[in-house]
């Protein structure tokens, strides 16, 4: 015991009475109530009788008795509405003492602080969840971007290949065109084009020269294949018919010139590929 002067001890006792509202129960070894005192009613403890089993009467004491030699401390026990007590259980020769000290103010202060702390903690947890959800959504988005980028790259590669093939085909076409133009413009092979009605729509100078017509005659549509080559039977164009694009075998034919004379030409013709109503013919003078 601290060696304190009597006035100090008295002051502390008064302070304890005012602030902590001490109260006590003394319980025998058999759990029966032996003595009581202090501000018990402030804790909702009333109707006490000697020998009563307090653990059965007051639910916050249930199961605690008997206590070990070291005693038991249960802080902040709600003994009745809005009233809390720190309850100490300790053994002495007289029995087990149960001391109540008011903890209501302490609980109120702690409650306000703890409420804020846990609210913040819960909010932080929610934010963490939201952050995780955002992270997951971002990861999914990145994955989709990666997949689409890969798909796009494959498309680009395919388009580049197609472009390269197109360029190659275009170059081949240009070569073919150049060859044909050379053929068309030469003065010893006659080339003529006619439509489904047999009207010659185009011809080179060599062909016109072979049959004695002029370019003006050509422009006016006066040259017809079945007129200048009446001995050949020219089939009527049939759109439903399968197109035979194979060139006809060259043979010698008599052509009727503009002045009525005849000239023999080695001649071959063929429809354009995919266009049954259009034909091209090649002629060489023997």
């Amino acid at each position, binding site marked *: 015991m601290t060696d304190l002067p009597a006035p100090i001890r008295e002051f502390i006792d008064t302070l304890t009475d005012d602030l902590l509202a001490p109260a006590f129960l003394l319980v025998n070894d058999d759990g029966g109530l032996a003595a009581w005192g202090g501000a018990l009613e402030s804790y909702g403890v009333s109707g006490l009788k000697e020998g009563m089993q307090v653990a059965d009467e007051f639910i916050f004491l249930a199961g605690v008795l008997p206590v070990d030699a070291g005693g038991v401390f*249960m802080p*902040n026990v709600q003994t009745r509405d809005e009233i809390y007590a720190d309850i100490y259980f300790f053994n002495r020769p007289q029995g087990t003492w149960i001391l109540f000290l008011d903890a209501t103010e302490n609980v109120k202060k702690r409650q306000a602080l703890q409420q804020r702390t846990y*609210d913040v903690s*819960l909010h932080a947890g929610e934010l963490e969840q939201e952050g995780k959800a955002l992270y997951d959504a971002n990861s999914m988005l990145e994955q989709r971007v990666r997949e689409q980028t890969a798909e796009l790259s494959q498309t680009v590669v395919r388009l580049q290949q197609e472009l390269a093939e197109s360029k190659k085909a275009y170059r081949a076409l240009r070569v073919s065109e150049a060859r044909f133009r050379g053929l068309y413009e030469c003065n010893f092979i006659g080339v003529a084009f006619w439509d489904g009605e047999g009207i010659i729509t185009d011809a080179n100078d060599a062909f016109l020269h072979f049959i004695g017509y002029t370019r003006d005659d050509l422009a006016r549509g006066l040259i017809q294949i079945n007129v200048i080559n009446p001995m050949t039977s020219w089939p009527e164009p049939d759109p439903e018919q399968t197109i035979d694009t194979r060139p006809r075998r060259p043979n010698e034919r008599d052509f009727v010139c503009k002045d009525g004379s005849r000239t023999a030409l080695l001649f071959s013709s063929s429809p354009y590929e995919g266009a049954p109503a259009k034909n091209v013919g090649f002629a060489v003078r023997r």
Partner: protein
Amino acid sequence: MIQKKICMLGTFAVGKTSLVRRFVESIYSGKYHTTVGVKVDKKVVTVGSEDVTLLLWDIEGTETEHEFRKSYLRGASGYLLVADGTRKDTLYRALALQTRAEETIGTVPFLLLLNKADLAEDWQIESREQEALEQKNWTILNTSAKTGQGVEEAFLALAEKMVEKKDD
């Protein structure tokens, strides 16, 4: 009449107080009020042909099991471990508390309650975790203090286990 002390164990804001209020008073408040210390309530239930007074110790949740005051467990015949199904970490805290409880009062009946079952779309506890605990013969119930789902069943199931243990 038989009296049985039941402790509500779990970290903060998992719904221990709400479960007790739902069970005892059939009411629910969505507003979170932290518990400081311990509040004791009681309810009489019938197990078989016997009336049993359940003393429900609603113990404050702590952030870690080390802060938990073991003296509150003194004399408990069983406990309900409560976790919030929408906060996975609360399950781990409950598991740690179970270890601490067993160290303190030995093997007594308990149930694990995965609370807030009404928030199914926010559920974080995977079925494989639940199955792993069930393989250890744990009884696990999904509860909702909000809707009342599983609440009565949980307390009654624990009461039955405690009475059975007494009869052993």
